């Protein structure tokens, strides 16, 4: 599974319920997926979806046709040069994407990140950035 971030920009959406367009579009492919986050912001209606890796291209193409902006934004990256392996971010990560390896160094498993961003302001070295 992998995570995509889909936004229906304001202007394109007339109604908040238009977000169902995103869902209906994906449902056409008869696949199982998870909705990780639903939010409305200044940019429009945004959904963070966890979808099968092999369907990413298909779904992305189809959503773009309906004016949905699709990107992988929403997850974080860790700058190893800034990180000092303290661990202040680890207890905030709900999926163990941020964890210590066997040598007690911070390890980030990108595929586990669900983009909750709870860790973002926990890093005393500002080594965690939103992608």
């Amino acid at each position, binding site marked *: 599974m992998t995570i995509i971030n889909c936004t229906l920009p304001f202007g394109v959406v007339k109604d908040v319920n238009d977000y169902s367009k995103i869902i209906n579009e994906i449902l056409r492919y008869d696949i199982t997926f998870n909705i990780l986050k639903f939010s409305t912001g200044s940019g429009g209606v945004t959904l963070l979806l966890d979808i099968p890796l092999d369907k990413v291209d298909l779904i992305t193409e189809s959503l773009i046709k309906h004016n949905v902006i699709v990107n992988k934004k929403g997850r974080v990256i860790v700058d190893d040069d800034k990180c000092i392996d303290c661990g202040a971010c*680890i207890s905030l*990560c709900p999926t163990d994407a941020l964890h210590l390896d066997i040598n007690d160094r911070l390890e980030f498993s990108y595929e586990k990140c669900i983009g909750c961003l709870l860790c973002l302001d926990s890093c005393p070295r500002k080594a965690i950035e939103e992608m």
Partner: protein
Amino acid sequence: MVKTYAEINEKIKSGDAIIVSAEEMIKIVEESGLRIAAEEVDVVTTGTFGPMCSSGAFLNFGHSDPPIKFEHLWLNDVHAYHGNAAVDCYVGCTRMADIKPFEYGGGHLIEDLVAGKPIRLRGNSYTTDCYPLAEIDTLITIDDINQAILCNPRNAYQRYICAVNSSEKTLYTYMGKLLPQFGNAHYAGAGELSPLNNDPDYETIGIGTRIFLGGGIGYVMGEGTQHSPENRFGTLFLKGDLKQMSSEYLRGVSYEKYGTSMFIGVGIPIPILNEGLAKKTAIRDEEIFTEVVDYGIPRRDRPILKNVNYKELKDGMIDLDGKSIKCSSLSSIFHARKIANELKEWIEEGRFLLNPPAETLSQDTKFKPMRQISELKFVKDLKREAIICYEDCDLKIVAEKIIEENMNHIIITDRENFLKGIVTSFDVTKAIAKDKTELKDIITKKVITTTDNEPIELAARKMKLNEISALPVIDDNKKVIGIITSEELM
């Protein structure tokens, strides 16, 4: 079996000394027993790498021409303390830059200085006959200045508490970001690797002890501030030459909404002079206990919820009333271990010898709270009677009460006196402007509250942070028992 410092140093010089880290010592004692471990091992090295807010540096810049006697000075916009001779200063790691507070502070400055980066020095003076220059603005590096001495009044806490948050909101503290309702836990300290845990009775660590500090050689100057040996919260006062140090072991940090600090690497060698020290240096995380403390209560004496050991903490999960709470460190075990191993190499290579302390550290210093001469006032001392309307009442009645009681805030409850919301005179005005006629359309349901025993200062901070001017006072059952407004606080 008794060894002396001189014997151990002779073995170090001849390359025969056996040096192990505190983690390795555990295995050696387990496998060979105390007696053999004490005979064979000469030195156990320890290490810790964590945020140490008391840290700072004394710097001497040399004299300018014409000479200046600083009144105020800034290094990369971080205000340094000047209250000593003309071109001396002390810069503390928690002092935040005037221009980028919460991003850059004294800790970052010290890291940059040690990394050899140019530092902007600005200063001014009221001028004297002997120091006539009024202003200076220049660039310096660590090589340009005379002395750069790391001087930290409180380092290397023997152990530290584990912080959790019972409150309803996320707290940003010096113990990191604490999620509401016990959402996570943070601890600090290297446990079995930590220097003072390996010499808990301060047999070998004392005034003058030579140590690893920030990648260079440093010394213990004595007991640290807030040294509390009876509670096993011992601390050390340390100094060292920044010119020998490495920015790898001195890292500026910034905690969100708290401020800046600095991570410091400290490593202390423990000579195995007797079997007792072999036993002490074999201490395990399971044997080192600390307290889980609730930072949701913003008082000096925060509630202690339970005791945990460092094994549980390092495993990443603690249990609190049947709930598993994810727990992580604020200090780096990886770097603590690296420091212990680097110090081990220094001694093995004969570059670092051990010395007995000139004096040992106090075993009975007390850590006292601050004496306050003004009496602490609580909400119950200043609250007044709340003007209450029921949730089903007419908006007009609310408006009448506002006028009748000359009160800006009307508390809305049910018949049982449970808090349901709050309405202000501004809400009523807004209702008229927007043609709203029902109380339910204008009521604020999410209400910030206080209790009888909350100190006034904390109630005032709640009002300030939330930009409101009144707090309903509720009891343990969430029934309304009064109100406190900004007028009472004036």
